[in-house]
C-alpha cells in the first residue's frame, strides 16, 4: 500500500520547462549543457563568462527568479561517475527560486584547478555575499568583484580549505589541540574587529562612533554568535555579524559516514528541530534509492515532524518574550515542552535528537497506547496558547515593543533569501507543505498563517498560529493513522527487516553487509527541500555509487536570516536589535552547520 508523492518525479523534464526554453532562445542552445538528475529541477551548466548574464536574465525576466536559494561548490576531482558532464575540478552551483512560478533552476559553473575564479553575483543577489565567502573559505574559489572575500566559518588564522577532498576530515588526523599563553594572545588579537577592513569610518561629522562587540557569548545572542555594532549614541549606524563559532563540519562529515549512519548528524543541525531534520535528508536518500515508503511511515513522519515544530516554536516563544524582557513565559513554555518530550520519548526513546527516521521508513512502529499520550498533549496545548496570546501578544507593552519594529517587506525578504515563518510574516504565502507537498502533506487539512507587516510582532504571532495548525495536523494523524508497515519493502531499506535475515545464509550475508557497510546508492544527484521549523531546509546529495555521499550540501534557513541583519538594522536602536534577534528564531548550528 503505497502512493507516489507528486515530487517523486524521476524523469528530468528540463526540455519542457518554459524557463529553459526562454534561456535557450536568448543565449542559444550551445550555451548550456543539461544534466539529468533526480534533483527535480532543470540543472544547466553554463560557461563562466556568461554566468552573470544568465543570472541577470533570470533575475529580470517576467515572474523572476527573485531568490538566490543556495550557492555552494563541489570538489569534483575524485568523482568517478560524471559521464557527459563538462570537465571540471571544482563546480560552483547556484540554485534560484521563483516564488511566483513556484519553480527552481540550478546553474553550474565548471572550473579548472589552475584557475579558480568566478565573477561575484553580489550585485544581483545581495545574499550571495556570505555564500561566496563560504565557498572561498571551504574550497578556495575566488569571487571576482566580491566586496569582502574573507573567511567566514573557519578562524582567520586557519590554513587550508576544509571541503577540498585533499583536506583531512578528522581532528585526530591533526596534532592534538593545545592552547598556549602566546597562542591565546594571538587568537584574541585575530578576533579584534578592525573597522577600516570593513570600510567603516571611526567617526561622523561631529562625533566619534562607538564600536560595541556583542558576543560570541551574549545572553541574547542565542549561542555562539557575534555581531559588532557601529554606534552613534543608541543608534546603530552599521553592524557586522560574525559567524563560524559553531562550525561542526556537518557537510564534510557526510563524506565519511554511511548513508545510514549520517542520520544522527542531521538531528544536530537545527538542534531544536529533532526528527524534522531527518526528513529532508531521508527523502533525498530515498529519491536516490528509488524507495517509496508506506502511508503509515509517511504519516508517522509528518506527525513527529509537526510535534517537533511545536516544540521548537515553544522554545522560540519563551526566549523571544524573554528577550523582550518578560521573565515568566519561558517557564511556562518549557513546561509545555516537557509534556511534548514525554510523548516524544515514549515513541522514539529519546528527547532532543532521536535520529528516528530510517531510509525506507522509521526506526520502530508506534508503541501501544501512543494515541492516548499524543491526544493528551493535543488537548493540553490550545488553552496554553490562548493564555500566551492573551497575556503576551495582547499585552500593550509587548505590542508597543514589537509593532513596526524591524519591519521588512516581502521583496526585501526574498532578496535576502528569507524563508519560513519570517517570510510569511511579511504576508507572502509560501509554505512548501502547501506549495510542493512532500511526505503526504497534501492529504492534510491545515492553513498557512500569514502576517502583514513583517515586524517583530508578526514573527511571533505567526508562530503561535503555526502551532495551532500543527496541532490540527497531529489530530488528523491520530484520527486517521493508516495501518500497514512502518518500513518499505525494498532491498535498500536500512536496516533491513530482521525476519528476512533468518531465512538462509544468503539473506544473512546481505543483511550483514547492509548493516555494517550500509547500502550502496547508484551514482546520481538528488535534493529535497522541506518547510522546517525555521524556514526552508534542504539536503542536496551527490552519490558516486558508494556507501557514502560524495558531497552533502545542507542549505539551512538561519544562515541567510543572520546575513540580513545589517540590512534591516541600520538606523535602528540597540534594544530593537535584541528584539529582532529574538524574533528571527535561529540556532547557531543551523547557521554554521
Amino acid at each position, binding site marked *: 500500500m503505497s502512493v507516489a508523492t507528486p515530487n517523486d518525479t524521476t524523469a528530468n523534464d528540463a526540455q519542457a520547462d518554459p524557463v529553459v526554453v526562454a534561456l535557450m532562445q536568448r543565449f542559444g542552445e550551445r550555451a548550456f549543457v543539461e544534466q539529468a538528475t533526480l534533483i527535480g529541477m532543470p540543472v544547466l551548466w553554463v560557461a563562466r563568462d556568461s554566468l552573470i548574464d544568465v543570472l541577470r536574465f533570470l533575475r529580470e525576466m517576467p515572474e523572476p527568479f527573485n531568490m538566490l536559494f543556495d550557492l555552494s561548490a563541489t570538489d569534483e576531482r575524485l568523482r568517478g561517475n560524471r559521464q557527459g558532464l563538462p570537465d571540471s575540478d571544482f563546480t560552483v552551483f547556484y540554485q534560484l527560486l521563483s516564488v511566483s512560478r513556484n519553480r527552481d533552476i540550478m546553474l553550474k559553473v565548471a572550473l579548472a584547478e589552475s584557475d579558480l575564479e568566478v565573477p561575484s553575483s553580489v550585485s544581483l543577489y545581495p545574499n550571495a555575499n556570505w555564500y561566496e565567502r563560504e565557498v572561498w573559505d571551504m574550497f578556495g574559489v575566488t569571487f571576482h568583484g566580491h566586496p569582502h572575500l574573507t573567511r567566514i566559518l573557519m578562524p582567520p588564522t586557519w590554513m587550508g580549505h576544509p571541503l577540498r577532498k585533499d583536506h583531512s576530515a578528522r581532528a585526530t588526523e591533526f596534532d592534538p589541540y593545545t592552547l598556549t599563553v602566546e597562542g591565546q594572545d594571538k587568537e*584574541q588579537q585575530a578576533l579584534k574587529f578592525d573597522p577600516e577592513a570593513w570600510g567603516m569610518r571611526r567617526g561622523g561629522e561631529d562625533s566619534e562612533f562607538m564600536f560595541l562587540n556583542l558576543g560570541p557569548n551574549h545572553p541574547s545572542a542565542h549561542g555562539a554568535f557575534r555581531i559588532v555594532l557601529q554606534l552613534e549614541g543608541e543608534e546603530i549606524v552599521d553592524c557586522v555579524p560574525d559567524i563560524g563559532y559553531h562550525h561542526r563540519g556537518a557537510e564534510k562529515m557526510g563524506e565519511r559516514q554511511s548513508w545510514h549512519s549520517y542520520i544522527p548528524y542531521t538531528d544536530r543541525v537545527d538542534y531544536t528541530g529533532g526528527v524534522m531534520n531527518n526528513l529532508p535528508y531521508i527523502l533525498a536518500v530515498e529519491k536516490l534509492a528509488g524507495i517509496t515508503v508506506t502511508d503509515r511511515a509517511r504519516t508517522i513522519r509528518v506527525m513527529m515532524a509537526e510535534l517537533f515544530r511545536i516544540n521548537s516554536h515553544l522554545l522560540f516563544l519563551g526566549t523571544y518574550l524573554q528577550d523582550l524582557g518578560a521573565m515568566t513565559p519561558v517557564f511556562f513554555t*518549557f513546561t509545555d515542552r516537557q509534556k511534548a518530550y514525554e510523548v516524544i520519548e515514549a515513541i522514539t526513546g529519546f528527547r532532543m535528537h532521536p535520529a528516528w527516521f530510517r531510509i525506507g521508513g522509521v526506526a520502530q512502529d508506534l508503541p501501544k497506547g501512543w494515541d492516548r499520550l499524543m491526544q493528551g498533549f493535543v488537548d493540553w496545548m490550545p488553552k496554553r496558547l490562548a493564555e500566551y496570546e492573551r497575556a503576551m501578544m495582547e499585552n500593550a507593552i509587548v505590542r508597543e515593543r514589537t509593532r513596526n519594529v524591524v519591519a521588512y517587506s516581502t521583496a526585501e525578504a526574498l532578496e535576502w533569501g528569507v524563508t519560513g515563518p519570517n517570510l510569511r510574516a511579511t504576508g507572502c504565502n509560501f509554505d512548501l507543505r502547501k506549495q510542493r507537498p512532500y511526505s503526504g502533506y497534501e492529504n492534510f487539512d491545515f492553513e498557512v498563517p500569514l502576517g502583514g507587516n513583517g515586524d517583530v510582532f508578526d514573527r511571533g504571532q505567526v508562530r503561535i498560529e503555526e502551532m495551532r495548525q500543527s496541532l490540527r495536523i497531529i489530530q488528523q494523524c491520530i484520527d486517521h493513522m493508516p495501518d500497514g508497515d512502518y518500513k518499505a519493502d525494498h532491498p535498500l531499506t536500512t536496516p533491513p527487516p530482521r525476519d528476512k535475515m533468518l531465512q538462509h545464509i544468503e539473506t544473512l550475508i546481505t543483511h550483514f553487509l547492509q548493516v555494517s557497510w550500509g547500502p550502496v546508492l547508484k551514482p546520481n544527484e538528488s535534493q529535497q527541500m522541506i518547510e522546517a521549523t525555521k524556514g526552508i531546509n534542504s539536503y542536496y546529495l551527490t552519490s558516486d555509487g558508494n556507501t557514502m555521499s560524495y558531497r552533502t550540501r545542507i542549505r539551512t534557513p538561519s544562515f541567510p536570516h543572520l546575513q540580513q541583519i545589517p540590512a534591516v538594522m541600520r538606523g535602528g536602536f540597540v534594544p530593537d536589535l535584541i528584539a529582532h534577534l529574538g524574533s528571527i528564531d535561529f540556532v547557531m548550528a543551523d547557521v554554521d552547520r
Partner: protein
Amino acid sequence: MAYTLTRADDAMAADNARYPLGERQRVEDPLDQQVHRSVFTGKLEEVLHSAVNWGRKNSLWPYNFGLSCCYVEMTTAFTAPHDIARFGSEVIRASPRQADFMVIAGTCFIKMAPVIQQLYDQMLEPKWVISMGSCANSGGMYDIYSVVQGVDKFLPVDVYVPGCPPRPEAFLQGLQLLQDSIQEERRPLSWVVGDQGVYRAEMPSQREKWRDQRIQTTELRTPDSI
C-alpha cells in the same frame, strides 16, 4: 582521601606555557597533618573548612554560557519542571566576574576555544567547570577538523556529565557531584591564613561505584508499549 594540589603562584605563566596553567601534584589530605600536629587547631580548621564549603556548595551561581544543543537541556534544568533552585543554583549570571562555575554545554570549537579560555580567566576564584555532554567531554561524535576533542585539552574540568545531550536530570546529578567535591575541598581560608594552595579531593569514579549494581540488570523494558 587523596587530593590534587594547585598552587596559586603557579598561575604566573611564561608565553609558551600551556593551558590549563599551574602545576598539579597528588598529595594527602593536608588536614591530616594539622590534626597530628595539634588536635585542637586541627579540628578547628576542619570545622571552619567544612562550614565555608557548605556555604559555597549550596550557593553555586552558574555562568550563563552555552555552546550548542546541550545548552538547551541545561536551560531546561533551570525551568519549572526541573527547577535547579532546589540546589541553590538558580542565580544565572551574565557576567563571568559574578559566576562561580561554568558549564561547558556543547561542542568546543577551535574558533571558540580562545574565547572560552578568556571567559574562564575572567571568572574569579573559587571557580569550577562542569563539562556537559559528549562533545565537551571528548569531542563526542564530532571527530572533525573544527572541533577540539574535549574541553579538558585546555580547561581544568571538575565534573564530566555523559550524554548526547545529557538529560536535565543528569546535569542536576552532575551539579550535586560538584557539590560533593566542593564539600571536601581545602582552599585557603584567607590570604594570610595558612597554606595558599588549592587542594581538590579526588572523588570516586561513578562508573566504578555503580558498576556492580548496574550489571545486575537483566531485564530491559520493551519499546513496544508506552
